[in-house]
């Protein structure tokens, strides 16, 4: 009996020693894989799991295996805060990816900053990186940049008076506010400002009001989920003869399918290179990474790639790039290396970080797209 115990104890010790010896890089993530923000967190979680698997098959980073600890915060900022603390204190991660939503990102951010752990957020709001916080970075372009891209395109068309119809969900409301803040800089006036609930079944009332507003030259619809599809259908039902702009929130093939190719014809929106992977010229710096991600994700999950999964892809890419360059997996070294990221092509854009800029993307990361015959086409 005594002997067995000793052997067991020895074996356990050996096992413990073995794990410690084969060093691994521990990365943590808190995403909203379920709950109201599942449309963001679900593809993000799948992307991270896939990428970690891929990188370990290739021998890890600098010869060290990557271990991912992934928590599902369900879109709840309080849970996200708890998970961030757990990731740092119990799981002893060297970096955190996550925060599918602005709310969860803001709560992870404070924990990460206090513990000096690098954190790459996947949420849209500009508040996350403005003002710059030493350990916080983010991959998606801000909602404001989407507004600016759209208004730039309107300006080129000579449009000066528009109507807006926005979802009252977090995404729609945030983008509506951002757009109204910057719209003046482009000499554009918002004449009609309507809203709808994300679960509404019919928006013809709001659209009729916009149509009957004197002078409206184009309509902008910030929102995601089924809302924009229904708006687009109702728009055609009412035969409104004005350009319709959607947001990057619906930049996926699913939108064309739900709205119907006929109704979506001519709709413009700012999207990423991911949507037009097959149309990218061979010399585009984003082409190889976009093609590789699209092929791998679609084979693994059987669903089409979307902008949101791409955000997680880019966060992981920035992190692995930084750890490789730093040659170390110490949080401080990773942070410094992330800040020096330069000309790194991701699916969303080409990232160049600096001490003043923890997003590293500019307006060129967005491409103005138009739906033509049920396909995406680049607007020159």
């Amino acid at each position, binding site marked *: 009996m005594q002997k067995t115990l000793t052997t067991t104890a020895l074996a356990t010790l050996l096992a413990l020693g073995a794990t410690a010896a084969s060093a691994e890089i521990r990365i943590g993530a808190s995403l909203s894989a*379920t709950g109201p923000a*599942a*449309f963001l967190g*679900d593809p993000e979680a799948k992307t991270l799991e896939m990428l970690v698997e891929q990188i370990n098959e290739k021998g890890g980073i600098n010869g060290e295996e990557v271990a991912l600890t992934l928590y599902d915060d369900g879109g709840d900022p309080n849970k996200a805060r708890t998970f961030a603390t757990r990731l740092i204190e119990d799981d002893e991660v060297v970096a955190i990816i996550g925060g599918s939503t602005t709310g969860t990102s803001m709560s992870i951010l404070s924990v990460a900053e206090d513990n000096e752990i690098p954190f790459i957020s996947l949420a849209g709001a500009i508040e996350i990186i403005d003002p710059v916080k030493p350990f916080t970075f983010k991959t998606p372009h801000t909602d404001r940049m989407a507004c600016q891209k759209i208004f730039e395109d309107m300006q080129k068309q000579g449009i000066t008076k528009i109507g807006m119809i926005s979802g009252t969900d977090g995404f729609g409301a945030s983008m509506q506010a951002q757009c109204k803040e910057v719209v003046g800089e482009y000499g554009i006036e918002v004449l009609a400002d*309507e*809203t*709808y*609930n994300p*679960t*509404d*079944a*019919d*928006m*013809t*009332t*709001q659209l*009729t*009001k916009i149509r*009957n507003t004197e002078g409206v030259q184009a309509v902008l619809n910030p929102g995601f*989920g*089924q809302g924009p*599809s*229904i708006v687009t*259908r109702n728009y055609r*039902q*009412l*035969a409104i003869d004005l350009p319709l702009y959607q947001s990057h929130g619906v930049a996926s093939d*699913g939108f064309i399918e*739900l709205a*119907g190719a*006929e*109704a979506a014809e001519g709709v413009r929106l700012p999207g990423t290179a991911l949507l037009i992977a097959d149309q990218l010229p061979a010399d585009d710096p984003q082409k190889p990474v976009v093609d590789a991600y699209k092929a791998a994700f679609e084979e693994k999950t059987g*669903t089409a790639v979307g902008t949101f999964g791409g955000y997680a892809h880019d966060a992981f890419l920035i992190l692995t790039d930084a750890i490789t360059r730093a040659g170390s997996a110490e949080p401080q070294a990773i942070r410094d290396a992330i800040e020096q990221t330069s000309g790194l092509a991701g699916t969303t854009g080409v990232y160049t970080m600096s001490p003043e800029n923890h997003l590293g993307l500019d307006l060129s990361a967005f491409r103005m797209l138009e739906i033509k015959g049920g396909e995406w086409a680049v607007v020159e």
Partner: protein
Amino acid sequence: MPELLQFLFSGVTVGAVYALVALGFTIIYNASDVVNFAQGEFVMLGGMLTFVCHAAGLPLPLAALIAIAATSAIGVLMNKLAIEPARGAPVVSLIIITIGASIFIRGGAQLLFGKQIHSFPAFSGDTPLRIGGATILPQSLWVIGGAVVVFIGLWLFFTRTLTGRAVLATSNNRLAAQLVGINTNFVMTLSFALSAGIGALAGVLVTPITLTSYDVGLALALKGFAAAMLGGMGNPKGALAGGIMLGLLESLTAGYLSSQYKDAAAFVVILLVLFFMPQGLFGQKSVDRV
């Protein structure tokens, strides 16, 4: 004038959706006084299963039939596994059980069908019908027609058939109903099957307009419940009128006041109605004979 007409069309379209969901509440409520909060999930299942069968290559009518039959079976299972074992529990407990069942069904649907939004083609195409300068989609007429047919069916069921009266008797006094020879277990099973079937039919009809995903049930059930309360719980006439009224209220508020206050205005009206007529517009006062 075309403007008002368009607002009315929009209101009736949305209202018919609410009415169809509200009608689904009536049977279970009439059989057991239980408000079945999983009713929205039945609607979701109707749309989702139709989508799955249609995507698998079945023709739409067959896909719809399978979806309705499968959802009815799920309704029966819910009664057998969740409601019947708790027989004798107060109505409030049973209502809470239905909330639990709705969370369970939603979670299961999320695992089985994923989180994507789905739809299937409208029955008679997408070419809008033009009437007096306003437009309405043919699918809206299907939804309105469906609501009217279900309403007539329910009305005939409760007033003209023995089974329908047995359902009402069970709700009124279970013991007395048993004493006069009504199989109350069968009545409960039947009411869940019918309610689930009506919910699924609603899902089949409204999905081309509202689209569907695993979590649409909750919002639909809340609006349907509000419509049923406005019209008078348990009364098919009330469900139909309540749904259409709620839709019109929302649409006219959005049209003439502001889309920001659309839901608030609708709920203020509901509160006012319930304040002065607690039984709803068409509900009957329950009288206890001592």
